């Protein structure tokens, strides 16, 4: 008789270790991005000067993380 796991099931049976590792790494990047965009990490870059490529530091920080997330998405998509 099938037993029902009590906790969450993120991967179906049969998925390879490499597949799971890729997705976990991606999740790590997204978690890092989420942490970076709120207090306290974001508070470390709160001051606007010196400008970064013409943008205040907080805005440049957010754009940078947006590009990191996009890069991670591209890598994940291409690997699958």
């Amino acid at each position, binding site marked *: 008789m*099938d037993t*029902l*796991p*009590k*906790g*969450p*099931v*993120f*991967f*179906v*049976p*049969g*998925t*390879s270790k490499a*597949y799971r590792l890729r997705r976990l790494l991606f999740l790590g990047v*997204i978690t890092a*991005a*989420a942490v970076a*965009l*709120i*207090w306290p990490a*974001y*508070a470390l*870059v*709160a*001051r*606007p*000067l010196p*400008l970064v*490529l*013409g*943008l*205040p530091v*907080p*805005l440049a920080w*957010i*754009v940078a*993380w*947006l*590009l990191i*997330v*996009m890069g991670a*998405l*591209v890598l*994940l*998509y291409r690997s*699958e």
Partner: protein
Amino acid sequence: MEPWLVTVLVCGAYLGLSLGMGIASRRTVTGTVAGYVAADRSMNVLVLYFVLGASVFSSFAFLGGPGWAYSRGAAAFYILAYGAVGMVPLYFIGPRARRVGARLNFVTQAELLVHRFANRPLGIVLAIVSVAACIPYLTLQMKGAGYILSVISEGLIPEWAGALVTYGVVMTYVLTSGVMGVGWTNTFQGIFMLVVAWFMGLYLPWKLYGGVGPMFTKIAASDFGAMLTAPGVTTSGEPWNWWAYSSAIIVSAMGLSMWPHLFMKSYAAKSDRALRLTVVLYPTFQLFLVPILLIGFAGVIAYPNVAPADTIVPYILTQIEFPALIVGLVCAGTLAASMSTGDALLHAAASIGIRDGLAPLVSHSISDRQQRSYIRILVVVLGAVSYYFAVASDVSLVALLLGSYGAVAQIFPLMFAAFYWPRATGVGALSGLLAGILVSVFFLLVPELRPFPIHEGVFGLVANIVVLTVISLYTRPEPMEKLRLYTGIESDAQSG
């Protein structure tokens, strides 16, 4: 010819093109509910990309966003921040929903959750939440459209007439073509918005200050310099609270992909890869917020004391000596932002209202043809209700919309549990959703009772997750066969 007339004619031409495109798209889908609501599950990456992107960026993008930048400085960055991660859940959950939806003929978000949790009242609650959240959002789009046409015509087109004409166009192509009308017009409107935003966002700082860097250098050195320090300032000029900022990000990020009119597009995708690629490309759309915010910042030193702050874009247009044609194109871009969100909201709210609200309540089954007819009737009804609020009511719509985000975010724990927690039950899901919504609404209405100065949606999410978890563990789970469908339908690694 008077400049305002040229501007109005340009906007008129844009509206005509949108209408023609929206109606023409009808030929590309079948005359079924699946065709009307989910485009026969045939949308490619190009259309999906613009449907998602343009639906997210509304009147707020062209009016409210610059207004926030102008009056609240770095506080406006939160719009960019939550979008950086907010669409990511759709990469994982979207394809699963698409596959289940294709197999079981789902076209709405609630249908999936009702089936997974075998709980009909859940669908009714979701229908109410979805429609109730869409109406203020739609109303704000109508107000934005009416406002911009009134300003560019120097008052000759009253706001009620501008909103009526614009949303008469929207309603026509939504009625005739359903979601494919939304798709084609959003593609056109999205391209328009992107071009206009990047042009204005780069041109204005250059014109007024000699560049983006010089603009921010001047703002930083001025009396307004404090606004550039994160997390920005409140409307009264006081520093925004870090708790409030961070919690707004969390709630908005969790709620973004759960908005019914966005989530439903999972069913419209032609394949899992098309949907995933759309999510991969979505950040490029998010980047268009950068020039949008630059437009608002451009007004800080050059045009101080403009009130209300949301009028800064039309104000700048009247001050900068642009050719009337350019002004017309910018205004058309603003209309595009409004319409590209309004059409998706109107279509989704009507579809949900019938599929999830009416159909489960009637004793007999409603035919596919009848459903389409009822959906179309509801499109007209909801459009009329929203229009009434737009022109005749003093209800605080912004407050309602901000409150809506807290309610919509409560769907996230259910959607996560549907696909990743087999032990989640229908009683747990309904209880969690109700607890989350009630707590969120309570703290929205009585903010002084919040134990911490954070977004009310966070309190709702805590209540939601606790109740969902505890009650699920003490109630009977769904049969294994159904759980395999949701948690292991085909391996994600094998889907195409």
